């Protein structure tokens, strides 16, 4: 005889009432939620607005009571050839460093993508320059660049005749140091992107007999383009604000050959104690970085949609 157990009816779920939130916690919640906004206002917006405000004063160490002078600082700086030299130097630096780092970084990422023992070792060693603070890198390279006792002229057999930090060479030497520090950053970012790409399109192309170059140009490059652009945005914006290792290497010289906008602002504010002039430099740099960032982010958005196939 078999007996059939009556079907068990699940016990009715006990709906637990949410514990009432104490009034003090309810009262505290708006303040807790507003902490990030307060931090942004105190940490970013307040100094930003204050710095912008200084750009409209004649604030300097020797001026006891600064007064509002309208756009006079802007007029003076925009009519100063040294400012435009700084703009030219900054843009040359940013474009050249970003292009070289991107090309080298993508190349290194493609090489590292092939699984090999050397590749795996190199992948780990590659990150070392990124571990060195740019100021320290500047000091190291300034020692290596020195014609009297630096290692570069010695190894290259140039004696003490070649000046790496001379009028025509200093900007390129500074870019070289930037490339040394930041190419690994681009390589690692792009390598991460390559490794996240789907394998199927490549396998299908290989079955169809597509060449490596064809697959690279038609498949890999369009799909990894957004990653490259992210690296470009980071590096380009960073280069527009360049200061540290360039200042260590040359202090903006010889003449104004490496005087970037940041160095110009530093010299005005800290060396010459013309605080308002320095703030004006920084305000103008902010405008350049802001507009560039807007443009590059819109390009990135387009590239992402194109990579996703949602836009031709």
């Amino acid at each position, binding site marked *: 005889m078999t007996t059939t157990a009556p079907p068990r009816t699940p016990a009715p779920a006990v709906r637990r009432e949410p514990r009432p939130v104490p009034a003090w916690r309810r009262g505290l919640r708006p303040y807790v939620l507003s902490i990030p906004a307060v931090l942004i206002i105190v940490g*970013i917006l307040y*100094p*930003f607005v*204050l*710095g912008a405000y200084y750009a409209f004063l004649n*604030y*300097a*160490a*020797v*001026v*006891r*009571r*600064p007064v509002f002078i309208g756009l006079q600082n802007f007029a003076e700086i925009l009519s100063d050839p040294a400012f435009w030299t700084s703009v030219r130097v900054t843009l040359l630096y940013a474009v050249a460093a970003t292009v070289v780092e991107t090309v080298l970084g993508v190349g290194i990422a493609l090489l590292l993508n092939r699984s090999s023992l050397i590749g795996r070792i190199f992948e780990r060693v590659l990150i070392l320059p990124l571990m060195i603070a740019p100021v320290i890198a500047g000091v190291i390279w*300034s020692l290596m*660049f*020195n014609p*009297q*006792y630096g290692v570069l002229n010695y190894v290259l057999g140039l*004696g*003490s*005749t*070649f*000046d790496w*930090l*001379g*009028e025509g060479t200093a900007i390129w030497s500074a870019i070289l140091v930037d490339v040394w520090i930041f190419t690994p950053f681009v390589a690692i970012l792009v390598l991460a992107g390559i490794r996240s790409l789907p394998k199927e399109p490549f396998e299908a192309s290989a079955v169809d007999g597509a060449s490596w170059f064809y697959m690279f140009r038609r498949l890999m490059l369009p799909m990894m383009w957004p990653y490259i652009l992210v690296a470009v*945005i980071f590096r380009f*914006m960073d280069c527009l*604000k360049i200061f540290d290792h360039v200042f260590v290497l*040359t*202090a*903006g*010289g*010889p*003449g104004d*050959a490496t005087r970037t906008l*940041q160095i110009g*602002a530093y010299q*005005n504010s*800290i*060396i*010459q104690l*013309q*605080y*308002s002039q*320095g*703030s004006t*430099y*920084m305000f103008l*740099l*902010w405008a350049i*970085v*802001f507009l560039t*960032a*807007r443009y*590059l*982010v*819109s390009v990135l*958005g387009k590239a*992402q949609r194109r990579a996703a196939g949602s836009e031709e």
Partner: protein
Amino acid sequence: MTRRELWTPNRRDLLRMLGVGGAAVGASSLLAACGLGTGGGGPATDNGAAEVTGGFDWRKAEGTEISVLQTPHPYQVAFQPLLAEFTELTGITVKADLVAEADYFTRLNTELASGAGNYDAFMTGAYFIWTYGPPGWMEDLKPWLQNTSATNPDYDFEDIYEGLRRSTSWDFQVGSPLGTGGQWAIPWGFETNVLCYNKTEFDRRGIRPAETFDDLIQLATDLTDRANNKYGIAFRGSRSWATIHPGFMTQFTREGCKDYEKQGDQLQAIMNSPQAVDFTRKWVELARAGGPTSWTNYEYPDCTGDLGAGTAMMVYDADSATYPQNIAGNSAQAGNLAWHPGPAGPDGSYGTNLWTWSLAMNSASSKKLAAWLFIQWATGKDAQTKAVQTGQAGFADPTRQSVFDGAFKQTLGNFPGYQETFEKVIGSTDIKFTPQTQFFETTEEWAVALQDIYAGQDAKTRLDALAAANTTAVNRAS
């Protein structure tokens, strides 16, 4: 409110916000860093000397702790072990904050501009008085010196070399010479800018230091052998006001040139006079033919380092910077160096520009008597004599004639020509610049002009442009 009415950022919006936000964050921190505190710096406070009355007593501020901002220079290093003696003498504790020389004046500017009075006394150079004085950041020490209740009768301010006393005193009026107005700092240690050369190498070649500027150019050129990494003379060339003040300003003055002249109630830059153009052209030629290859980056440690390594045969810079290179164990050429005043001017002038590390009082200090007692002690005869006798890194040069003639000469040792050079130039050693509040801006521009001429620009055209820009800058309404 429906969901559609709520703004929901899409991925593109988020990316845009991230990018723009990143740009703002990156730039805003530095934008703000350009402004220091609130406008105008600290308010000038009343001089505190009048509050000190009664007889002089080292223990008048007993139990006080003062903060002093200093940079680890040989003067400071020599005095550090003596601070315990000061505390024993006065009952005042000294808290010395040290900031590396490269960052020192940035820190000091920030501190003084804030008006917070965190530091009661500080080290400063004479040129900085021209910037720190006008906003009222510094205490005038003349009333303290004149107050017999605050100053030891044995202090003997006149024992400090006259050129040094004059260099730290000014009335801040456009065109007024140094030595007028308040005494803003008390000289503590100083340096004359003269020539130091490798005597062993000179003796081996049977040559002597040059006595005229043209001969110096020829000598430096002859001693330069770039294939063997040797060159004739090291002097500063970096993009800094500090490039102008040592050898350049000394020889500029000896050759009869001036930086500014007063015309009416304004200053006119005349570093483009025919004499100045000719001298500048020769100076740059000296750098090209006999200077370091990377001259436009050279600062004083590079110059003295090359001298000590035997790469540079001569250095035209501060005597106190070359002095340590001759101390046994400090350099490869220790014991081989000697000093010379450098070329005299056409009229036989040995006019020499100086740098002095001085001690000054923060006008915002709330412990002015204790700060003054510290300054008075550190610049006094007893402490300076002990610093000269015990300072391991060398205390060159003491600012008091009695200390130079006494303890310094006794401890000088094997430094050929050092004393003779000092005694030859000291009478005509002071600050050769015209005092003016835009010193750092205009003098850095002068260094930039030198670099441009070195790079090939025409000296006359470049110096005309510099003089026009500097005339505008020095007369800028403050």
